[in-house]
């Protein structure tokens, strides 16, 4: 069958700088580079290049540059290169197109159309270097009433809470979709930071049980790796109903990623595909969810908060309100720009709604119904920096999940080929020679640095607003203004336009 596919990238090698150390060749799992002994030249097979920049990053003389392939099809306003390319691929393969990470398509990023307030004159901004600036949050239910004992002393009638030093958590990424070393990096960082990471639906490797107090374990439609010990060791349990990148779609981890260790963690045979069904086959409606929530609470003696994670879809507000009444302690909403290890391209790029709008409408709905205090809201789906965190919290979130940002901190270069399992950065792969490229000793420090840096920035932004505790920012939409948004968008976001 003829192959009409063009390369995505070109390898530009400055031969005057190349010293033939062949690091590029050794480090490219896609086998783009090779050395021709006879003519003493480095060759490149560009069709194989995914633009992960491993070679560029390691080239000691900066002789390499990966650039977008300059040639194009005869594209036009309607038929973009991408659309043409996809048709060629499908005409060749007859299959569903797969891709990884969040959608690259130019949908509006509302975070970028929201600006943050600061104090001038009428009230003082606060200098985080001089005054305490608090970023600690607790996630969980708040009871309706207080209780006192006979002496009038307040009883602690709070259900189990998650305490976060900063309102950021590492979102669900399963062991299998990412490597052992990536998991260890996340677990260690979460522990050091006093936050949480999430196992995703991959079970929990026995080596990581020691990080249990900072671990959120996931129970998803495949129920992989779920057993008493798994639930008991965790700080919280997350029921995954959906994922922003692929709402309404299950998961599929190809057999080659099910290695000895992965199979043990997932409790499935080595080499078999791990398929998570689209729905939970014991949850066909909200009351079924309630049953699962409570059976998990029963199983763990009501000692752990239960999180329900859903994808941001059109009627998310109603869904969230349902969940809030289902006994869940925390609702996690994943926006459609969220990442994935592998998803059908068409789904990823066309299904769901942006997290900003979903969050705004859910927060409003829960308040209108007077039940916002029943649950905490965690949002995900492309939180890219500390400003996104601040905006999300001002819109009404209690905390944010970061996935892609964490992976980038670990070295991910967003080449979006996780599903190929040949991650040159040792993250989205199970190939031992690639996995070892991510040394958790380095990885966890980079994650700690990232979150610490964001925490500093959050404090700066809070101080500017004259706020010295993150609680006072939650839902504080007056601190936000929109730019270039229409009336409807402003109304949904519940914010004023800049200048108002």
């Amino acid at each position, binding site marked *: 069958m003829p192959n009409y596919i063009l390369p995505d990238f070109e390898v530009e090698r400055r031969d005057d700088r190349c010293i033939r150390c062949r690091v590029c060749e050794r480090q490219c799992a896609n086998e783009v580079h090779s050395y021709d002994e006879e003519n003493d030249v480095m060759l490149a097979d560009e069709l194989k290049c995914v633009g992960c920049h491993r070679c560029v990053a390691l080239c000691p003389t900066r002789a390499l540059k990966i650039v977008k392939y300059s040639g194009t099809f005869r594209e036009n306003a309607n038929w973009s290169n991408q659309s043409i390319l996809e048709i060629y691929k499908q005409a060749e393969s007859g299959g569903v197109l797969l891709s990884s990470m969040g959608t690259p398509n130019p949908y509006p990023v509302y975070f970028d159309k929201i600006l943050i307030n600061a*104090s001038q*004159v*009428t*009230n*003082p901004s*606060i200098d985080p270097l001089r*005054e*305490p600036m*608090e970023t*600690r*949050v*607790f996630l969980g239910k*708040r*009871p309706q*009433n*207080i209780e006192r004992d006979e002496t009038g*002393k*307040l009883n*602690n009638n*709070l259900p189990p*809470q998650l305490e976060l030093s900063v309102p950021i958590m590492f979102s669900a990424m399963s062991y299998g979709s990412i490597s052992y070393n990536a998991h260890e990096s996340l677990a260690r960082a979460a522990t050091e930071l006093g936050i949480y990471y999430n196992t995703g639906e991959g079970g929990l490797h026995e080596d990581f049980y020691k990080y249990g107090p900072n671990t959120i374990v996931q129970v998803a439609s495949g129920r992989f790796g779920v057993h008493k010990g798994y639930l008991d060791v965790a700080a919280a349990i997350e029921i995954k109903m959906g994922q922003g990148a692929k709402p309404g779609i299950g998961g599929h981890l190809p057999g080659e990623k099910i290695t000895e260790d992965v199979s043990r963690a997932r409790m499935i045979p080595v080499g078999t595909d791990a398929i998570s069904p689209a729905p939970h086959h014991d949850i066909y409606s909200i009351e079924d969810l309630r049953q699962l929530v409570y059976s998990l609470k029963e199983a763990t003696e009501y000692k752990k908060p239960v999180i329900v994670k859903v994808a941001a879809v059109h009627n998310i507000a109603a869904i969230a309100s349902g969940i809030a009444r289902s006994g869940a302690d925390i609702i996690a909403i994943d926006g459609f720009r969220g990442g994935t290890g592998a998803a059908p391209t068409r789904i990823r790029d066309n299904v769901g709604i942006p997290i900003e709008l979903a969050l705004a409408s859910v927060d409003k709905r829960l*308040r209108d119904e*007077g039940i*916002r*205090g029943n649950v905490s809201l965690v949002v995900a789906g492309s939180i890219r920096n500390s400003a996104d965190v601040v905006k999300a919290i001002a819109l*009404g979130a209690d905390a944010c999940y970061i996935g892609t940002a964490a992976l980038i901190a670990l070295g991910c270069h967003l080449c979006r080929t996780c599903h190929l399992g040949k991650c040159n950065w040792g993250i989205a792969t199970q190939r031992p020679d690639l996995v070892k490229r991510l040394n958790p000793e380095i990885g966890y420090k980079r994650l700690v640095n990232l979150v610490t840096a964001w925490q500093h920035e959050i404090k700066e932004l809070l101080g500017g*607003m*004259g*706020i*010295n*505790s993150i*609680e*006072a*920012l*939650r*839902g*504080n*939409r*007056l*601190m936000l203004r929109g730019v270039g948004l229409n009336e409807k968008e402003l109304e949904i976001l519940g914010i004023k336009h800049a200048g108002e």
Partner: protein
Amino acid sequence: MKLVEGRVRIPSGCAISGIISRDRRKFTGERIVESMKVMRERSNGLGGGFAAYGIYPKYKDSYALHIFYNDSNAKRECEAFLNEHFEIDEASELPTRKIPEITDEPLIWRYFALPRPSRLAASQLDEREYTARCVFAINARIDGAYVFSSGKNMGVFKAVGYPEDVGRFYMLDEYEGYMFIGHGRYPTNTPGWWGGAHPFSLLDFAVVHNGEISSYDANRRFIEMFGYRCALMTDTEVITYILDYLIRHVGLTLEESASVIAAPFWSSIAKKPPEERERLTYLRTMFPSLLVTGPFSIIFCFEGGMMALNDRLKLRSMVTAEKGDMVYVASEECAIRAVEPDAENLRYPSGGEPVIVTLNGGKDNA
């Protein structure tokens, strides 16, 4: 567009003062006016007001409703509503003194009323909650009518003008009470309307406040889940509602309420003895959205006494002093000296430390 409370958020700096006799000894409103006068600098003539307690012994069991009307239609509509929900003992114009400094006054009426028993029973609410809801209803629904005082045996008097002029206008020198608070306003943009002046009051709760809180919308959006409607978009309003919610609905003590709205920092909580630590952690975890940040100093009054409180960083000035059974709170010491030259035990309460004064023999809680 004419700027009006309720349409725009109006931050403002201010002067506050409060005087209480713990033995319920009565004194005239002249003193609070004198005390406010020396802080004229802190106001800009765009709002002044007072709350006076124990001034209506004759009707001490009825709710004294002070209402502004823009016009007689508003009055007619509102009185229809009142008659429907209340038995009114007396309705009269609130006595005022015409002075050049105070102009454009609305119709100002006063009603001594009690809920109609049939209605009250039907509502399945207690008398206070019933009355409060009626107040919200009028302020929200009846255009041009605004209830600015709704407590028993107390009254709020406020207007656009400097506090001392407002005091003369309302003839405060002719009222006798055991507790007064005053407020002089310095809004950073111009309000149109008398209702926007302070104190802000609900039932027998009245609050005067100096500051601009940065947590406003977080507090507002949370408190509105419980039936409150922040019609004025002022800090004073939301703080009053927060205290009303915590005290009247949740049932926290004044100290506990103070530990919620001006919660100690986690770092200082960590240093407390275990039991105290647990209590404070509980309150912060239970009511995170009622933490009030940004600068404020408030005096919160209720029938049984008052609480003075600063924001936890003490970003606004506030002084307290005593003389005999009298207790004084003010933005500045001079405001106290002006009415009590030999005031004793002058103190500058630290941030988040509530100063609670209750009437002798009275219950130590709102």
